[in-house]
């Protein structure tokens, strides 16, 4: 990777800081990104001028709402998955479960699209949301088909999350052998998901498809939802 232009790298650092920590005062921002206050003020003013940050009434600086529209535009621009919209909708309709498309990004699985199922409104993962690669069927399907150095750090979301390296290695082998991942209550207690990787030309995971629902509804999912998931995966598979 080339070294990004300094001013943009600093602007990026401010935005990342606000994304992770929420609104902060200008002097907190200066301390956290380690620049003199005067430069932090100039940087914040610059970001404000282009509407990437906005001041709150109490003087703290927060991400602007423009990011909501940028995020929607970014989602809409993912036309390498143009077919995914209708495939996800069919998968959700056939199974009654919420269907997700996720892609790997720096040690995590990022949801890029979804279709809501019948049942309850589960907010496990929305577009733009990310999970560590060790938790959830979408993540674990990706992890099983990515090289070790791209696995990222394991995160324990619930007492049922797999974090032990050898347990995760076994899980990866099992997923590769049977072709799908099954994740029970490892992101949210009470929720189970079923996932399948979409593999690229070199056998690496480029995305995953998954469905999730209440564990009670998912008890027989490996039989009932699997055929739909398989059809959806082969419809989207780049190979």
């Amino acid at each position, binding site marked *: 990777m080339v070294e990004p232009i300094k001013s943009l790298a600093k602007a990026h650092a401010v935005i990342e800081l606000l994304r992770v920590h929420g609104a902060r005062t200008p002097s907190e921002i200066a301390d956290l990104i380690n620049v003199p206050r005067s430069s932090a003020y100039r940087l914040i003013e610059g970001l404000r001028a282009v509407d990437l940050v906005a001041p709150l009434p109490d003087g703290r600086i927060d991400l602007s709402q423009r990011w909501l529209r940028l*995020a929607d535009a970014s989602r809409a621009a993912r036309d390498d998955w143009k077919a995914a919209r209708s495939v996800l909708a069919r998968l959700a309709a056939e199974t009654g479960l919420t269907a997700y498309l996720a892609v790997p990004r720096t040690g995590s699985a990022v949801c890029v699209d979804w279709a809501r199922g019948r049942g309850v409104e589960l907010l496990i993962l929305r577009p733009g949301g990310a999970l560590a690669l060790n938790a959830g069927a979408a993540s674990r399907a990706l992890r099983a088909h990515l090289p070790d150095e791209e696995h990222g750090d394991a995160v324990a979301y619930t007492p049922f999350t797999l974090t032990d390296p050898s347990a995760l290695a076994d899980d990866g082998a099992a997923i590769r052998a049977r072709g799908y991942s099954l994740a029970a209550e490892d992101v949210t207690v009470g929720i189970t998901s079923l996932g399948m990787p979409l593999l690229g030309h070199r056998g690496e995971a480029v995305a995953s498809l998954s469905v999730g629902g209440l564990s009670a509804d998912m008890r027989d999912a490996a039989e009932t939802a699997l055929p739909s998931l398989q059809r959806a995966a082969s419809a989207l598979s780049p190979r």
Partner: protein
Amino acid sequence: MTEMTSSATGLDTLRKADAVLRALEHHSDLAVAELSALVDEPVSSLYRILTSLTALGWVEPGGRRGRYRLGLDIMRIGYAVEDRLSIRAHALPTLGDLHARTGLTVYLCVRRFTRSVCIERVEGRDVRSLATMIGSSTPLFAGAAPRVLLATLADADRDQVIESGFRLDPNDPPVPHDLAIRNDAEAVRRQGYAVSDGDVTPGVAAIGAPVCDHRGDVVAAISVSGLRPAVLGPDAAVDVATVVDGAAAISASLGFLGPSVSGAPLAAEEEFPRG
């Protein structure tokens, strides 16, 4: 290079980067030459900005060769903004203002499955309605705010709610006929507000209107409620426009740019800013 010129260059770079983000926001993906024309920047210096933005994850190579689009990390930032967006916090100033102007009780409600849940209320002087306290819920067919929430649901979701029978509580009013609920929902959706006249508590009336998020999806409803003469009739302290405008003000604070909304989400296509 002096400190002065280096910071001026920094802001200039930020402005150029912003122009790139704006162009990509409105064009899904662009080749470098197209971007160069749109942001009025020579290809050589644009390339430097694109390389930086790509390294930072805000821009990425598009599905097609030689083209760029907004990066995946932008979705993650938008997710964080959406996650922290508190409807209640954004609505409070408007709720307070509506109460100050009308003296009536103002409610903020969101849908939970088949019911409307009150998440905020600003007290009126006349009556203290026991029917709708914070945290209490009402089936979606009864009351101005609940009926707005039902009317603005997507058709399939609305059918599902109606077919479910609303999961009634012992104190709920009786469920009207399906057809009556559907006709009411159509009317409310068409007019963009709901008037309730004693359908929850006899003698109490309310006017409700939808609040939507930046996508134009309805995420809440507000209502202004009081004794019938204070809400309806010639000497009413409130009118429909006041409530609808209040709801629109909350929608705007949630990032909604479009006109008032009902039912299907609007596709708000902005013009790409020139120059």
